[in-house]
């Protein structure tokens, strides 16, 4: 057996993979938060709840309609994204002229309502969601066994993150979006429907969260608290990365997942707090965040 720093190789790599998976979720969620923050100037506290809804949506599709995992991977983000658009149109859009803190309070309230309703309907013990047949089993990578589904999650997350980055940085739609983030009235003067752009951005960010939710469903049991457990850490990730850059949120998300995984190997007691400790260090040395622009 290979030993690295006195730790058995498979254990180290196993935890690294787990870290990478958590990192994949951090990346997808903080990416959505950053995109929404850029356009709407609100921090979406309901992000965790909508992530949870994504997981529940895939569970419902399977159990009520018999629709399997792969169609759900497309359908659930569309459904929850549409739900997000309804939320933006009916509630959030009323707050753009007010202090940003009201947006935070409103979305926090939304999160409470959504989680409360799901807890009433499904309890908080969690529902099982099976890994699809094709992705069961494990592959021998030579230095460790990798469960196929976990590899799939990391791959999917990387592809989706890269696609989001490419849309925002490389397409003309993305260019309009970035311009509207910088100066919305000017872009509107050029004939772009900025309110619709804002709505679509919110829907897109939510769809990303829901996609992450579907990926998470087979790994963590589907339960109403799964979003909250993640989102508090994701906020720390956002503070560390700063919300200035798309690539920044992706890199920070993955990196912190790996740091968390490594901490589990070397000092397990600290694994729940290590992200927060990193946040403290960043606040002391670089308060704007690693990739943040000046306020």
């Amino acid at each position, binding site marked *: 057996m290979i030993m690295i720093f006195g730790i058995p190789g498979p254990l180290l790599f196993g935890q690294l993979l787990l870290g990478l998976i958590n990192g994949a979720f951090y990346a997808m969620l903080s990416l959505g938060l950053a995109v929404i923050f850029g356009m709407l100037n609100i921090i979406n506290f309901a992000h965790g709840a909508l992530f949870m809804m994504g997981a529940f949506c895939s569970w419902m599709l399977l159990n009520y309609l018999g629709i399997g995992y792969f169609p759900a991977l497309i359908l659930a983000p569309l459904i929850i994204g549409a739900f997000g658009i309804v939320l933006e149109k009916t509630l959030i859009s009323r707050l753009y002229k007010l202090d940003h803190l009201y947006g935070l309070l409103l979305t926090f309230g939304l999160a409470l309502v959504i989680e409360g309703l799901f807890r009433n309907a499904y309890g908080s013990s969690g529902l099982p969601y099976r890994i699809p047949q094709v992705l069961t089993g494990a592959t021998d990578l030579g230095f460790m066994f990798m469960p196929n589904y976990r590899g799939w999650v990391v791959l999917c997350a990387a592809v989706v993150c890269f696609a989001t980055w490419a849309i925002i940085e490389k397409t003309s739609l993305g260019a309009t979006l970035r311009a509207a983030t910088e100066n919305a009235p000017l872009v509107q003067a050029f004939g772009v429907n900025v309110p619709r752009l804002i709505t679509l951005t919110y829907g897109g960010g939510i769809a990303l969260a829901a996609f992450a939710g579907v990926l998470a469903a087979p790994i963590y049991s589907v339960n109403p608290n799964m979003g909250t457990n993640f989102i508090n850490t994701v906020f720390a990730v956002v503070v560390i990365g700063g919300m200035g850059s798309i690539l920044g949120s992706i890199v920070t998300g993955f990196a912190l997942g790996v740091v968390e995984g490594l901490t589990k190997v070397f000092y397990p007691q600290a694994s729940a707090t290590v992200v927060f400790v990193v946040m403290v260090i960043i606040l002391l040395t670089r*308060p704007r965040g690693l990739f943040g622009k000046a306020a």
Partner: protein
Amino acid sequence: MFGFSRAQTIAFLVMVALIVVCPFILYPVFLMRVLCIALFACAFNLMIGYVGLLSFGHAAFFGMGSYVAAWTIKFWHVDASIAIVLGGATGALLGLCLGYLAIRRSGIYFAMITLALAQMVYFFCLEAPFTGGEDGIQQVPRGKLFGFIDLSNDMTMYCLVAGVFLGGFLLIHRIIHSPFGQVLKGIRENEPRATSLGYRTDDYKLIAFVLSSMLAGVAGGTKALVFGIATLTDVHYATSGEVVLTTLLGGLGTVFGPAMGALVIVTMENYLAQFGAWVTVTQGVIFIVCVLAFRRGIVGEIGGRLKINL
């Protein structure tokens, strides 16, 4: 009196009258919970209402104050007054550490940082041996006040809690109306200008944060004595959310709003407790309604209608 306006003096006297009369009509333990949450919300209001910083981590100070008061009175058999003071001191010390980090950013980031730091405190409490983990510290005796007043009687305890609340309330009022409080309001309105006038705004914000967290610690410590228990619920972020809701419902930045909010929220929780998660749903709905239609809160609306500052 204490810089109260005439309308505020009347409102204050009404509040004191209610505090005196209510225990003869209503269940004292329920009222003690209202007063503890009211003090907690007043402390939180000091930050959001007068410095303009939304802290989403005040449960850390409330909960740690609660743990320390419970631990010292149960295992060191200290006097009840000392336990509450130690709760407050813990809140202040923790507030100094977390505040030093959090005031580096403002607005939305401040909210996220305080939330994350409080989450760190929560995980610490989950792991640390002295908190009793999931069980918490149970069967905490109320002890004696100044060595000779037995607090096991609910009415005696009520007098102490009412005294602590009124003391904290008047202290906050004094702080707001002092020159220091005026500078805080100046920072809230226009920070660069306050800086250019020569004020070290970071110091002012940090002192306000420490005062606020100290009073939150006092509220937590008092709560631990009343109910004889300190648990993870007190440090959980849901408690942070609850205090935000309480203050928002009563009226952000009003003097009497937090107390009013505490009365409404605790009453609501009392009646809805049997319906499980509906409490959460109701809280969420109140949040949404407040933000969309009712931003001044109950007391703010009343004051606005009557054109007075309450």
